[in-house]
Structures are given as C-alpha cells and as structure tokens.
C-alpha cells in the first residue's frame, strides 16, 4: 500500500520538476502534464481508500525516507531527520479533499495567457506540499511541508492574481510566515520538552509523541506516566492555528487573497490551506496536548463562536460573492474550533466532517462564481440581478452552493454542524446556544445573496440577452462537486467510519 502514497506524493513532485526543467513548451503542454500527474495522484488517493483499514490503530502506507541527522542533538544521541509519510483516518479524509480540489484546479480553471509554466509549476509544488502536510508522520516533515506550501502559494498569488497581486502576496506571506514560526517554535519546543520531562530519547515522530502524551508504551520506550506539555507551548500552537485558519482579528490576509487571487489559487487557499490550521490543532492539540485543550476549552469556545458569528455578520454585510465566500469559510472554521474545544468524540468527528465539507463547498462556490464572472465581468451584487433567467444552470448551482453553505440536511454541511452542536451542547450549552444564532444568520446571508443575484429584474436587458449559459464543458466539474457534497450528505457512513477511527486514535483513552 505504501507505493500508493509514494505515487500520491511524487506525481506532483515529478510534475513540478518536469515543468521547471523542461524549457519552452506551449502552455497547453504544461497544462497537459499538470492534468495527467494530478489525475494520477487523485486515482492513487482513490486506491488508498480501497486498501485502508479503519480498524487498525497504526499509521498505514508508511513511507520513510531517511534524510540526515543532527549529531549530538540530545544528550549525545543523534537526532535523525527523515521525511516520513503515512495515513490515518484524519489524514486520508483531508488528503482526499486536497486531491479533489487540486485536481479540479488543474482541469477546470482557466490558465492566464502566457503563464502556463508558472501556474503548472507552482500549483504542482503546492500540491506536493499540501499532500505532504496532511500525511507527514513527524514534526520536521510537517514543518517543511508548511514552509514549502507557503512559498509556492506566494508565487501563485504573485504571478497569477487578478488584482493587486503584490500586496496580496506579501500579506499572505507575512501572516502565514508568522504562523509557521509559531508552529515551529511550539512543535520543536514540544518535542524537546517531552524528551526532557520523560527522560526519553528526543524524537519528532507523531506516534511516539502521542504515545508519551497518552502514557502508552511503545517499542522503544517504557512509559508509566503520561506527559503533558507546558501551557505556553500550547498557546503558541494556538496562535499559529488562529492565523492559519484566518481567525478574527488575524484574518486580514484571507479575504484579500480570496478576492484578488485567480480562481485556482483562491480554491487552493480557501478550500485547502485554511484547513491545515485545524489539522494541526487536531493532530497536535487533541492528539498530543489533550490536557491543554481541556484547560483552554473556554478560549477555544469563545474564539470559535466569536468567529462563527463575526464571519456570519461580515458575510451578511458583504457586497460581492468572493467576500461572502471568504467570510462564510471563516464562519465555518469558527464552528470547527468550537467543536474541537469540546473534546467530545462526536463533536470532533463533526469538526472533521466540517473541514471536508467546507473545503468542498468553498471550492464549489468559487468555481461557480468564476463561471458567472466570466460572463458578467463582475461579482458585485448591485450589478448582478435576475441571473436566473439568462443563466439557469449556473444559477441553479449557485443556489445549491448557498443551500449547502447554510447546512441544509442531505448536504455534507449538515452532518458536521449537527454533530458539532450535539457535542457542544453537552459541554458548553450556553456557547452552543449562542452559536445557533450563527446558523440562522448563515441562512440569512446565503439566501440574501441568492435573492439579490439570481432573482429580481435584470438591470441590463440588452447585455442579458448576450449571456450564454454554461455548456457541459464548463459545468461538469461543478456538477461533480455537487454530487460529492450530496453523496457525503446522504451516505456519510464511509467518511464517518474513517474519521471515527481517527477520533479514537486522537482522543486519549477514557477522554
């Protein structure tokens, strides 16, 4: 099974190298290479699903690439640094989300004139890095992947953005750069501190660190106690996560990036990159510092619910689709944070669902609105009205996207929200109650947006007559996303099963 993970990781890496080194091909050729390799990765992720054993308590499909070692890093012992990859339920779910979104970026978004090479190169590097982020098995690999994601996306924003590219790119770089510093300091600090406290060898591997946190003996350590990290380590982690997930007031980079980026990069940022923060919180917070999560549960609940509401209000007051999409994503991530903070199995499973669902819905909306924008040349509501008549298919998808955003039953969002609140009411009933207000608001803002754009009289009849509705070639990727959202909503069992195994791994025994 490990070879499948090899393929997933190295297809985009080979694509990156090929694109970077092959001189002077046409844009089409670059795109062809990109699509082929991204499809290979997607198929390999699909194959991983068929081989995955949810019942197993080990990481699966483990790939180890020993790299180098820092001599005498800890009490005379070497610290071996390798690139280790593997999957558990959580990794698999998010890896699939990333593979789907990145594949859609390759096949369905427009390549700006003359920038085929730059786009193919940096998207594939970013996709390697994102896959590596979600499948890393040690802290070093994770941090390296985060840094590579950072600068690949920086170049995407810089080269491809539709407006104000320089400011957007630098802002992105600085915010997420600071976040990666917090992650580096907190995670390396965690590894050293756990080695010092437990008088064990220094290790960066997830398995051993999690075992120490839960007091479970592994092959090379006999533990009788469990290790809990100092609070400042957790606080630094939390700060990093807050920036990565674009939480208010550290969210400033995110709406800008979504608004100015080209569709593909916006899908990458909104659909995948904001999920890395939550992934880090689940993996390191819940999995390795459970005691701290419990201590700071009120902080998580406050920030989470605060963002849920703030995102909803900001989305309500938005004047165009891109802004609405970015703030609704922030709002969803607020709920994820709240759910994680409760440390309830149900809620955490819900949070995982929400991550996948929010990534899919954000991509769906971004893709649909990009098709609309290709016709109307704007996404501002005061210039859009009555689109349902000239563009029935696109309006239909837009409506579906809006309904999925507000978490209608039978869509993927519903399960996540239901489970999060189910767990939330058990621990923080007051917060959960206030949070429900956010759900109502999400219905208000998404339906307002729909009412303003698709219904009503058309402002410019002559222009409207010229609009052609989307053809098959344009709408099939959107339809595919729609089906995925519906599939997860109607048949949640496969994904839920995989996530449940992850929840049991992450939560300490009896937690």
């Amino acid at each position, binding site marked *: 099974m490990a070879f499948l993970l090899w393929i997933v990781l190295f297809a985009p890496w080979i694509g990156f190298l090929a694109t970077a080194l092959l001189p002077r091909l046409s844009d089409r050729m670059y795109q062809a290479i990109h699509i082929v390799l991204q499809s290979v990765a997607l198929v390999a992720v699909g194959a991983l699903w068929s081989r995955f054993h949810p019942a197993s308590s080990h990481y699966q499909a483990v790939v180890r690439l020993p790299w180098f070692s820092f001599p005498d890093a800890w009490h005379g012992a070497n610290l071996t640094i390798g690139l280790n990859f593997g999957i558990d339920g959580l990794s698999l779910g998010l890896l699939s989300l990333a593979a789907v979104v990145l594949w859609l970026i390759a096949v369905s978004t427009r390549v700006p004139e003359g920038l085929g090479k730059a786009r193919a190169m940096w998207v594939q590097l970013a996709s390697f890095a994102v896959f590596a982020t979600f499948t890393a098995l040690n802290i070093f690999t994770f941090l*390296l992947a985060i840094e590579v994601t950072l600068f690949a996306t920086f170049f995407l924003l810089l080269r491809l953005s539709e407006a104000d590219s320089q400011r957007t790119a630098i802002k992105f770089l600085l915010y997420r750069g600071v976040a990666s510093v917090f992650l580096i300091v907190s995670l390396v600090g965690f590894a050293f501190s756990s080695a010092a406290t437990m008088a064990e060898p220094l290790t960066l591997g997830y398995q051993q660190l999690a075992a120490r946190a839960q007091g479970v003996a592994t092959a090379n350590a006999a533990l009788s106690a469990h290790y809990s990290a100092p609070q400042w380590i957790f606080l630094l982690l939390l700060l990093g996560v807050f920036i990565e997930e674009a939480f208010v007031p550290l969210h400033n980079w995110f709406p800008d990036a979504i608004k100015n980026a080209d569709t593909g990069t916006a899908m990458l940022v909104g659909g995948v990159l904001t999920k890395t923060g939550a992934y880090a919180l689940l993996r390191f917070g819940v999995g390795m510092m459970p005691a701290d999560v419990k201590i700071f549960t009120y902080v998580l609940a406050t920030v989470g619910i605060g963002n849920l509401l703030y995102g909803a209000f900001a989305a309500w007051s938005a004047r165009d689709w891109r802004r609405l999409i970015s703030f609704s994503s922030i709002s969803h991530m607020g709920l994820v944070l709240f759910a994680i903070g409760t440390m309830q199995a149900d809620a955490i499973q819900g949070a995982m669902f929400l991550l996948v669902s929010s990534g899919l819905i954000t991509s769906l909306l971004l893709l649909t609105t990009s098709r609309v924008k290709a016709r109307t040349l704007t996404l501002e509501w005061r210039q859009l009205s009555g689109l349902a008549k000239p563009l029935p298919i696109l309006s239909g998808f837009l409506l579906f996207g809006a309904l999925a955003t507000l978490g209608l039953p039978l869509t993927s969002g519903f399960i996540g929200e239901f489970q999060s609140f189910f767990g939330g009411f058990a621990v923080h009933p007051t917060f959960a109650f206030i949070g429900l207000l956010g759900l109502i608001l999400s219905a208000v803002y998404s339906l307002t947006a729909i009412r303003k754009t698709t219904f009503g009289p058309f402002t410019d009849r002559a222009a409207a007559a010229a609009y052609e509705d989307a053809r098959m070639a344009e709408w099939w990727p959107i339809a595919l996303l729609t089906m995925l959202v519906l599939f997860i909503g109607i048949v949640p069992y496969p994904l839920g099963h995989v996530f449940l195994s992850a929840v049991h791994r992450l939560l300490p025994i009896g937690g």
Partner: protein
Amino acid sequence: MSLATLLQAHLWTTMGPLFVVGMTAIVVMVLELFLPAASRKFIVLLAALGVVVAGVVLVHTMSVPPELSLDTMVSDGLATVSSMLLLATGLLVLLLHLDVNESEEMPRESSFLLLFALVGALAMVTAVNLVALYIGLELLSVSSYVLVALRKRHRQASVEGSMKYLVMGGIGSAVFLYGVSFIYGLTGQTSLYALAQASLSLWQHDAAIAVIAFLLIVVGLGIKLSLVPFHMWTPDAYEGAPSSVAALISTLSKTATFALALRVLVYIFNGGAHDLFPYIAVLAAITMLAGNWLALTQHNLRRLLAFSSVAQAGYLLIPIALFGTASVREWPDLYDNLLFYLAVYTFLTIGAFAVLHLLEHHRDVTMADGLTGFAKKSPWLAASFIVFLLGLAGMPLTGGFVGKFYIFTSTVQTGVLWLGIVLFATSVLSFFYYFGLIRTMFQSPLPTYGDAAQGQAEGRTPVPVATGIVIALCLFGTVALGVVPGILLHPLALVQWF
C-alpha cells in the same frame, strides 16, 4: 630563525597554511610591482593557486594530533575547521576578484592585499595568544581598509566608505585592546590557556575590573562584527567597496572574527562569568531585530545586503551567547552550530555578491527597482540569485534552513528558547525584503519610449567564466547543505574542538 627551524614539523602543523599564504602574498606583491598590467589575470590565478596549496598543506596537517607551537599557535579543531573555511572563502573571493579586478579597473596592487587579509584571518583562528590574535585582527582590518578604497568607478563613495570603516574599525581595535590590557594586568598572562586556568581567580579578586574588561572586549568585537548598535560603518563600507572586497569583508572577516570571539570570550570569561553571557544574548536579539528592521527600508541593493549581513551576524552570535547556560557536554554542539551556519552564510553571501557584481557591471543596477524584468532576461542568473535570497531568508531545501533549525535546536536544548523565537520571528521580518526583491525580478519593466527597444536589445547578462564558476560553486554549496546537510554535519560532529 634559520630555515631549518622554520621547516620544523611541528611549526608546519600549526602554521603551514599561514606560511604558504604569506609567502604567496609576498611573491604576488613583488610580481604586481614588476610585471606589466596585462598580466594581472595571471597574478590573481597565482594567488588562487597559493591558496589551493595552503589548502593541501592544511589537509595534510589534519592527520597529525593537535599541537601547540611557540605557546602561541595551535592546531586544534576550531583552528583547522575555520582555516579550511577561510581558505575556501579566500579561493572563492579570489576567483570573483579575477573579473572584478578588470571590470572595476582596480589598481594592480590588490591581490596581495586580499592574501594578506587572508593571512590575518588565518592568524586570528590559529592563535591562542592575545598578542598574536591582535596582530591577526589588525592585519585583516588594515588590509580591508585599503581594499575598500580601491574601487575606481565610484571613487568618492569608495574612499568615504573606507574612511568610515577605518575610523570605526580603529575605535573598535582600541576598545578591544583596552579591555585586553586589563585582562593582562589582572593575570600577567596573554596566553588563552593560561587565562582559562586563571579565570576563576580573576572573578574572585577583581570582579569589577573583569566586568569592565568583558564589556570593552564585547564592544570592540561588536564593532568588528557589525553588531547593532555598533554597525554604522557597515552599509557605507559595503556600498563603497569593490564587489569582491564587499564579499571578503562580509564573509572572511566575519568567520575569523567569530572564531576569535568564541575563543576569547569562552576561554577567558566562561570559567567564572556565565552570568555575563545573557548580555551577549540581548546583543544578539537587538542585532537580529534592528538589522532586519533597517533592511526593510533599503532600496539600494548593497545597503540591503549590508543590513541583511548585520542581521545574519545576530543569528551567528546566538551559539556564542548560549555558552552561558550550556553544560560542557553541550559545547561541541555550539561549535558545530556556529561553523555550519558560517559555511552556509559564506556560500550565500559570496554568491549574492557575485550576481550583484554582474548586475552592477553589465546592467548598471544599484537599486532594487533595477531588478525589474531580470527573471525574464536572464532566467538562470535570476534563479541562482533567488536561491541565494531564499537561503538567506532561511527557506527549506537551502542550507539556510538547516543552519537556522540547527541553531534553534540548541537554543531549546540550553533553555534559552526566547532567543530561538526571536531568531525565527525576525526571519519572517526578513521575508519581507528578500521576497520583495524576488517579486521585483518578476515584474515586467515599465515601458518607456526609446528605452524599451534598448532594454530588449540588452537581453541576457553575460556571465564571465570565473564569476560563473563562483556562482555555480556557491549554488552547489547552498543546495547541497540544504538537501544533504549530513555531508558537513557529521564531519563537524567528529571534530575535537578544543
């Protein structure tokens, strides 16, 4: 001293490279005086050959156990490894000098000064006696002052830069020496080994004077290392100097001075005064913060690199600052950290200055906005410049990342984590200007009438062979230390440092 004693084996073990480079310097000096101007290429190549021979001698001495000759020169791990790095630096700088020498129309008498600077640097890392260390420091400094002034194309900036360098450097030497004189007065010793023995009694009897001596020595070395707030000369000297000399003063003298600072501070003060080392940590933090902060506002490429090297000096100071809390068992790690990052920094800086030289000479670029369209016109050159900038910013897959990460693990291990946080936080600050440069390279140049056609015709920047080799070597070093850092980390771990 007769020739026979000069060639005695134990002197060669400790001073072999020093002799070879020194003799080459004298030969080159005489040749530069008598040979016609047309043969300057030959002379620089001869100088480079001398450095290579010195390297061979050094490799030969490595099999011999460490020795102490004349109670002054030593061939311990620090001396050998730093000498190796210095000779490599010298070779790269001389190769770069081959082209700079012609394009800058420098006076002929420049290669021998580079070699004398190298001799001084070698003396600084091999000597364990304060007198010899001071001579080495001054030999390096005085040669550098002259070298900075030799840029003919920008005569005035060059002389002014040199003047400022000389004044600040002179003050630095005097302050350092004043501190050293107190150390001598309290112990009657100038040998570092004897001082390490005397260290504890120093602190029991005359702590106040010893503290003053410590502060004076730190300030003096701080001026030489361009630590904030003693960095004022740095941007001016860098701006005025010929490219190869700028590369020299930012790498060779840094390596040598850091090795000297390590020896002096650790041997003399660590025995009785760990509690003073946190002040060095504060100095490192201020240097990292201010260096990066000042670089943010720079548009002149050389001044930007100057402030970036100030910031890098802050990173390099961290291992020295950590000696205060490290246990003796952890000392070798700190030596490893310092030398590894120095090696990485050397490659990055020389590479960046080599590209900058081509930019200045062939495209007349001195300001950051002159880089517009560079990526399109000379993709390979731009790509290597980007790698050097990414390395300086500490991005993965370059040696810069491994070096910073390695230093960071030491800060965690010795319990001075806050310094590690400052290290990474200021690195993010540095993203702003390094990535700003990269951003500019990808911008398309503003269309201006008349100039546009000329800009198109200008096309690719030509790369002379020697500079090309320097860039390729630096690129190789940067990437190799980032991708397979084991090739340097493990040999370093085996070194018997003291």
